[in-house]
């Protein structure tokens, strides 16, 4: 059973109201939600607030989630993006009232959703973590160190063909994750 099948089980149990599935979803994706929020809001405390809002909101709104049409992670990231946008707007309001500044001086961030590129990076980092070794190590050698597949094979004492197929499978999975959950499209 691949990770996707396991995720689908969690998603279905979540939709059905199984509280243990909520805990499992939290275990699996709270870090992702938190990271996306922290990258956008620049504050771990605000990211904590967003994470709470997202999981409480997701549980209460689970009737609106269809596990056969969307991944639970995708749905949670979608809720997170709304919550992050709200947090940005709340900050602007806060600035306006607290400092009583002329509204013209307050720069409305306008966006609110995390920058798409930042979201993509967080998603890719998360998926890379899910890959497991040796795929993850192989791709990191290629990404961070710019090694060719034959250098990687030598480095890890692995057959060329094995490295190649890990590169292909790993990249395909990362691409799929960006396609499904990513912001830039």
């Amino acid at each position, binding site marked *: 059973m691949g990770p996707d099948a396991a995720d689908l089980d969690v998603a279905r149990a979540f939709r059905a109201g199984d509280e243990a599935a909520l805990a499992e979803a939290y275990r699996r994706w*709270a870090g992702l939600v*938190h990271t996306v929020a922290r990258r956008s809001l620049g504050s771990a405390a605000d990211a*904590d607030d967003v*994470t709470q809002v997202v999981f409480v909101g997701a549980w209460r709104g689970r009737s609106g989630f269809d596990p056969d049409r969307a991944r639970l992670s995708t749905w949670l990231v979608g809720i997170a993006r709304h919550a992050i946008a709200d947090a940005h707007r709340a900050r602007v309001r806060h600035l306006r009232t607290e400092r009583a500044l002329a509204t013209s001086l307050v720069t409305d961030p306008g966006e609110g959703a995390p920058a798409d590129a930042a979201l993509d990076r967080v998603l890719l980092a998360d998926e890379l973590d899910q890959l497991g*070794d040796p795929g993850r190590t192989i791709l990191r050698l290629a990404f961070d160190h710019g090694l060719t597949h034959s250098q990687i094979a030598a480095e890890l*004492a692995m057959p060329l063909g*094995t490295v190649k197929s890990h590169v292909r499978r790993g990249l395909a999975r*990362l691409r799929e994750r960006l396609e499904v959950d990513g912001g830039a499209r």
Partner: protein
Amino acid sequence: MAHVDPDILALLALGEQDAVDPSGREHLASCPECSAAVDELRRTVAVGRSLTDDDQPSVPSPAVWRAVHAELGLAPELAADPLGERSATAELAVGPTAEPTADASVDAPGPAPAPTAPPSTDASVVVPLRARRPRSWAWTAAAACLALVIGVGAGATWMRRGTAPTGSTVANATLDALPAWPGASGEARLEKEPDGTRRLVVSLAAGVPDDGFREVWLIRDDLSGLVSLGVLDGTEGTFDVPAGLDTTRYSLVDVSQEPLDGNPAHSSDSIVRGPLV
């Protein structure tokens, strides 16, 4: 003409232009499908290459689950933070040091090593993982998974053992159990012949599952690579160390439990591990 092998397309996306032969290159130039596939993968590679330390996954504070649990009135048995265990593991994996455990060196003759002593500056001794760890966060995550609790092992065993090397023994390792293998232990000894050939003698005390086998590895101190030395049959084995392998860098002795799945890679299920010193 046939499409270009997907393996090759992936390598092209990583910038390995030499991966494709002339006929493949010709095909690519005229095949929208293949070139679109490369372009899409290139975008993925660009994101992968842009990762920074800031993209390192972060963990919500324990207060968040408490608040979720209270706000939704969840069952009492779900009160524990689902992330509790994982974050503790992560801290162990990358933390500076752990409390030294009872160590084999305790009963060894000679001066007792001070648990808090800084790593030796002797050039022949590898420095602890933490100091050598590359900046990239990627490796800390790799450490968390591949190595699991190297921080613990390092804290406990990056000390010279009390026994002086005798004869042809040039380095020793005390192998400590990983959390999934409580009670396991082992020793390794690196021996050198006058002609320069080196052998690693490994002994392991651990419960034996019904299937699979044990494999002995030397892992680089920054976890960026590993070399398989062979299959450990029984509780002790002697393995040739490839000539030219720098054992001051490939300094972590690792014994893994491997499934019979035909996959030559490390299973990530390490039984014991320890640094050669």
